């Protein structure tokens, strides 16, 4: 599996490299700065309860295997979270070392320890005796993988159904390769598969009720974690031209083997990205790494209110992405079916975060236009509407998300649980991990009733 991944990555590696990891000595220097707080706030800041305070103390006391075990026991995807978590909003946000000089680089330490554990070939995960009870997990994003691993640890017979060719969901197809690459992802997914989790890839549920019907088959419980696969486009003139993509289309192609094709297309061309979140910034940076010429990030929010994580925003700016805040796109101009530009005007949001037309005040004489060759929408995504047909008995809320009990993540149908973005809407990988853990726990409770 790893070998294949390497081959496929070779072209991608020309454009994208993930951050260099710490060496052991560097990790020790960083751990030495940790205050080793009593009742550490960093540990309270992790939705997946990875307990940074504990694993850093272990690293400090040279118990590296123990540190690795804490991470992996708490979060089977601990390495990935170390790479992709917006730590400045989570564990590192309350790090008290900031009162001395600067916060501890927790994410990087976490990633170091996971790779260290892999490199020494240490397997800290134990598996209980086989229970001969089948559970189905639908979708293999962070929620699905975590739920599958947690159940498998307890001896359940888990099958993951994944509609794509490879496992990982948003981790594989929704995160730019300069943040997380296939090698790393494959290595961590291997930890899940090593627990004996069965996998059905390229598996698409089509018939009405076909997911629900698994319960009539041999499966005693189902965890639905299909994520958000329906990326939004603005309905404006030109938005259905062939040079207009959603961020999902774009990242999908980058992350599959089509990177060379995209690179040829985009080189020295101008790109407008619509959106001001982390995904928009990631896509913008990706375009720049593919040698695009001018890359604009156009968003309704003001610079101060950009929803993007600071690290992602800074990365984009470091790559000379042009941020155009407080602006709305009204038209994508085309010539002979090809995109030639975007037109818009500056705006003010009367109320923060409210994008309804009545809240957007246009600023007079602020019209602008950019010559661009491609437009990429990064304005969020929703639940695939088809999922309702596959789960006809399950209740959905008015935004199209699956309704669940907040604590147990059980849906309106007994035996069917759901978690991740299909429940929460746009969220973080680490929250999906939390859901996966919670879902597994509830499924075990349910099966033992």
């Amino acid at each position, binding site marked *: 599996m790893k070998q294949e991944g390497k081959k496929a990555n070779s072209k991608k590696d020309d454009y994208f490299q993930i951050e260099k990891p710490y060496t052991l*000595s560097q990790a*020790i*220097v960083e*751990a*030495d700065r940790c*205050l*080793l*707080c*009593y*009742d550490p706030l960093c540990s309270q800041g992790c939705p997946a309860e990875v307990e940074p305070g504990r694993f850093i103390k272990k690293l*400090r006391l040279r118990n590296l295997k123990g540190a690795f075990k804490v991470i992996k026991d708490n979060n089977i995807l601990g390495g990935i979270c170390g790479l992709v978590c917006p730590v400045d909003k989570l564990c590192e946000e309350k790090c*008290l070392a900031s*009162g*001395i000089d600067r916060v501890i680089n927790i994410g990087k330490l976490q990633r170091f320890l996971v790779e260290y554990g892999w490199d020494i070939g240490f397997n800290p995960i134990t598996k209980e005796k086989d229970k001969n009870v089948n559970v189905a997990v639908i979708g293999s994003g962070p929620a699905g993988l975590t739920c599958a691993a947690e159940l498998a640890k307890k001896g359940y017979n888990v099958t993951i159904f994944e509609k794509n060719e490879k496992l990982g969901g948003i981790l594989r197809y929704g995160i730019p390769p300069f943040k997380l690459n296939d090698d790393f992802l494959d290595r961590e997914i291997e930890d899940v598969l090593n627990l004996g989790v069965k996998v059905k890839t390229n598996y698409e549920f089509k018939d009405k009720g076909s997911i629900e019907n698994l319960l009539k088959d041999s499966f005693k419980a189902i965890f639905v974690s299909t994520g958000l696969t329906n990326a939004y486009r603005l309905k404006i003139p030109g938005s259905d031209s062939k040079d207009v993509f959603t961020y999902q289309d774009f990242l999908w192609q980058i992350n599959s083997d089509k990177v060379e094709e995209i690179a040829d297309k985009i080189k020295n061309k101008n790109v407008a990205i619509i959106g001001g979140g982390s995904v928009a910034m990631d896509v913008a940076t990706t375009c720049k790494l593919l040698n695009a010429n001018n890359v604009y990030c156009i968003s309704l929010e003001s610079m101060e209110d950009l929803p993007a994580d600071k690290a992602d925003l800074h990365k984009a700016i470091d790559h000379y992405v042009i941020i155009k805040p407080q602006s709305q796109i009204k038209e994508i101009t085309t010539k002979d079916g090809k995109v030639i530009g975007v037109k818009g005007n500056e705006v003010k949001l009367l109320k923060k975060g409210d994008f309804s037309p009545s809240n957007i005040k246009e600023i007079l004489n602020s019209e602008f236009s950019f010559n661009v060759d491609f437009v990429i929408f990064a304005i969020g995504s929703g639940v695939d509407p088809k999922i309702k047909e596959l789960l006809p008995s399950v209740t959905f809320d008015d935004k199209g998300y699956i309704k669940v009990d907040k604590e147990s993540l059980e849906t309106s149908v007994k035996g069917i649980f759901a978690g991740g973005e299909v429940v929460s809407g746009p969220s973080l990988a680490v929250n999906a991990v939390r859901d996966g853990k919670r879902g597994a726990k509830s499924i075990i409770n349910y099966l033992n009733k």
Partner: protein
Amino acid sequence: MKDLSITVCGVKFPNPFLLSSSVVSNTAEMVARAFDAGFGGVSFKGIGGPSVEIINPAPRMHSYNLGSKKLVGLQNVEQTTDRPLEDNIQDVKWLKKHYPNNPVMVNIMGFNKEEWKYLAQVFEDAGADMLELNFSCPHMSVEGSGMKVGQAFKLVGDFTDIVKRNVKIPVFAKLTSNVTDITEPAMYAKEAGADGITAVNTVRAITNIDINNFVPCPNIFGKGALSGYSGPGIKPISLKCIVELAKKEELGLPLAGCGGIETWVDVVEFLLGGASLVQMTTSIVKYGHRLAEDLVEGLSFYMEDKGFNKVEDIVGKALPNFYETKDFDLSRQGAAQFDLDRCIGCGVCYIACQDAGGQCIEWDSKKRRPIPDEEKCYSCMICSFVCPIDNPPLITFKEIKGKKIYTPPPSKL
């Protein structure tokens, strides 16, 4: 810039900073560069008697690290020099020719009586300003040499006597800390005529044992040995030896301090403790000769700040403040004081006090602040040692008039 010169046994040093007898003083060329960088003098790398050919083990050193701090100490199994005697004689001559103002002390180690006499005479003839008799190397492969001499006090006297009878230049005896009381061999040296004492050579130690192959470090092809340990890790021990020697009134000899000196602050401490000269190796391993300019400037600024005009005036200045523990005034007590406005809420003071102190700190988990109980505090001050807030420290000791010592009640059966 203050005049940092100091005259010891009639020999004038431009400043009290010397290279100690070790890898850093192995050749005239190295020493010359150290002088150029600002070192005042040298104790030239130990020269053994010509009767034994020296081959040094490989590898010969090992770094002792603490957390992310490297070279907290240095362990070595190096012997006396492996260079031919003639080369060393020529190097000393060359140094005296080109650096007449930088005193050269030559560290020698005879392997029998005749060799002590021979080496002393040869290097006096070569122009050495002083001799340093090596009674202290803790890992000599030659039977009856180094530390073995320093531990057999009579031999210290005998060999000092031979040297003193045959040369006119001042003679320092370099002693080992690996004895019960370092002043005893020092008195033997004095009675045999020694003009000064160098304290101390490396401490016999073992820094690490490789937990995978069970071999002590440094690993010399599967073998290790208890051997010499130097650097900041031994400073408290070497400073103690200087203070003990300086406080020994019958001794009354000038002292060269050696063992873990890195900064001008260390130097000042050794001077305050009674040393007139200081010698360094591990700090040069770590920083190179460039540390000399900071020693020179640091000591000079310190003397300006404190109004000292001569280095001599600092020497021994702290000695009157050294007492026996029985002399302490136990009627005066105090407690730790917390400047909580600057507290960042890490709680390590609470952990330390609960698990290793007097359980006199409670924890306010909502505010994340310690709640100290002054009455219960017995001022061990470990809370202040773990507190990350320094300069000025958040937790300080304060005397509390009339405070009674609190002792914990017995456990209820």
